[in-house]
C-alpha cells in the first residue's frame, strides 16, 4: 500500500465514523479530537475500523499515536 492509498483509507474511515467532518479543512498534525470534536467513542470507533481495514490489531497503549492524520500515516507505514 502506497502512502497515498493509506491516506485515502484513513480519510475514508474518518468519514465513516463521523459523516459530517470536513476533510477539506483537515490539518495533518492536528489531533482529531480538537479538529473534529471527536470523543472517546468516536476515536475508539475510528481505531477499530482502521485496524480492521488494514488487518492490524492496535494495542491500547498504541492508540494515542493514531490521534492525528500524520500519526496514523507514521504508525501504519512501519
Amino acid at each position, binding site marked *: 500500500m502506497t502512502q497515498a492509498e493509506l491516506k485515502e483509507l484513513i480519510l475514508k474511515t474518518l468519514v465513516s465514523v*463521523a459523516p*459530517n467532518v470536513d476533510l477539506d479543512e483537515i490539518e495533518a498534525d492536528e489531533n482529531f479530537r480538537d479538529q473534529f470534536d471527536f470523543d472517546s*467513542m468516536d476515536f475508539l470507533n475510528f*481505531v*477499530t475500523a482502521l*485496524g*480492521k481495514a488494514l488487518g492490524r490489531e*492496535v494495542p491500547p497503549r498504541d492508540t494515542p499515536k493514531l490521534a492525528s492524520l500524520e500519526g496514523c500515516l507514521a504508525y501504519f507505514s512501519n
Partner: protein
Amino acid sequence: MSDFLMPSLGADMEAGVLMEWLVKPGDRVERGQIVAVVETQKGAIEIEIFEDGQIQSLEIVPGTEVPVGTVLARLSASDAPVLRSEAVAESAPTLPEAPASAVSDTVSIRAAELEVPAAALAQHSASAERLRISPLARQRARELGLSEAVLAQLTGTGPQGALCLRDIEKAAQTPPGVSPLAPHASPSARQKALELGVDLQKVQGSGPHGLTTAEDVERVVSQHALEKPVQNPMRAAIAAAMSRSKREIPHYYLAHSFDFEPALSWLEALNETLPMEERLVYAVLLVKAVALALKKFPEMNGFWQEGAFVPLEQIDIGLAISLRTGGLVAPALKQTDQKNLKTLMAEFRDLVNRSRGGQLRASEMRGGTITVTNLGEQGVESVFPVIYPPQVAMVGFGTVLERPWVIEGQILPRRVIQVSLAGDHRVSDGHRGAMFLARIEKLLHKPEKLL
C-alpha cells in the same frame, strides 16, 4: 358552557400549532372523539375531547401556534341551543351595497347592522366580563340604538373604565369617517376580529370602499403565524424542557473530586486483553457505577408527576449525547444495573452512533429514569447539570485531569475526576445527595465489581 383547551402532550410541551379542525360549530361531540389535529415537536397529534356536548364556537384558526392551556373551542351542554357563529357570519349582511347616503347616517345604522354578532357577543361576554356602564349611559345608548357589541368597543372614561353618558354622546356625535366604531368593517369581520383578538385598526380592508372583511382578518392572523421566526426543532425541544426544568425544579448542586486512577488502571489492563472491537470506554464504568449506587438511593430514580414523586423500580440511565450538528439527545440504556460492561458498551456504542445518525426510535427518545452527562475530554473540570423533567436528579462527570493528590501522606500525580449532582429539592436533600456521590466513588474504587 365549558372550554376546550390546548392540551399538554408531553412534559416538555409549551405550545402547539392547531393544524386542523375536524368539527365545526354546531357539531355534537362525544367524550373521546377526535376533534382537532395539533402539531407539536413530536409531530402531528390527534386531539380528543373529554366531555360530551356541542361545539359552540371555534376560537383558534388553523395554522396558529398557541400556548398549552389556551381556549381552542367553547363547548355547551348537549341540549343547549347552539350558536352557529360561522353560519351567522355568512348570512349577515355585508356592508354597503346600499347607496352611500343610507349609510352615512351615523352610528345607529352601523349598530343595527351589528345586531347579529351582538348575540354572539352576549354569549361570549356572559362568561367573561360584564360590560361596565352607568344606568344613565345605558338608557342613552338604548335611545341611540347602540347595541351591546358597539358598547363593548367603546372606551369608558368613568370609574374602573365604566362607560358614562359622555362616552355615549361622544360616540354618537363622532362623524362616521372617524367614528370610534371605525374602521369600516363588515359584521363578520368584527366577529372574527373579536374571536381572534385582532385589532381592526391594523387590518387593511380589501372589500368595497376599503371595507374590512372576515377574510382580511384571517389573512392578518395567518401572515403573523408565517412571519414568526422558526426555531430549529431540536433547539426548541431543548428550550422547552430546560425552561420547564429551571422554572419548576428547585435544584441543589453538589460536586466531589476523587482519585480515578484505580478505575482507569484496571480498565486499561482489561482492554489489553480484549480484541479491538470489545474494548471499553471509561464512560461505561461511570454509568454502571451510577446505576448500582441508585439501588441504595431510590429518591434519585423516578419521576415528579402531578405534584408528587413516583420512585421507579427499573433503572434506565439516560445518556446526554451531544450531536456534532448541534444540540443533544438523552436516550436511555434500559435496565443499566442488570447488564454487564460488555453488553452496556455494545448498547452505548449503538445509542451514540444512532443518535448522531439521527436514527433513534421514538421509545428511546423518551429518555431514562435519571440522566448522566459526561463531559469527556473537552478539558473542563466541573459540570452543573440541569435536570431533565420529569426526572428528579442528574449526575455529571467532568474531564479526567492529572492532579497532585495526597495518598497516605505522599503527594502523587493521579488522574482525578469530578462527579456532580443536580438534585430536585422537592424530593431529596443535600445530605442524601452527598451520600449518593460518595457511594459512586466507592463503587469506582472497586471497578472489578462493576464487570
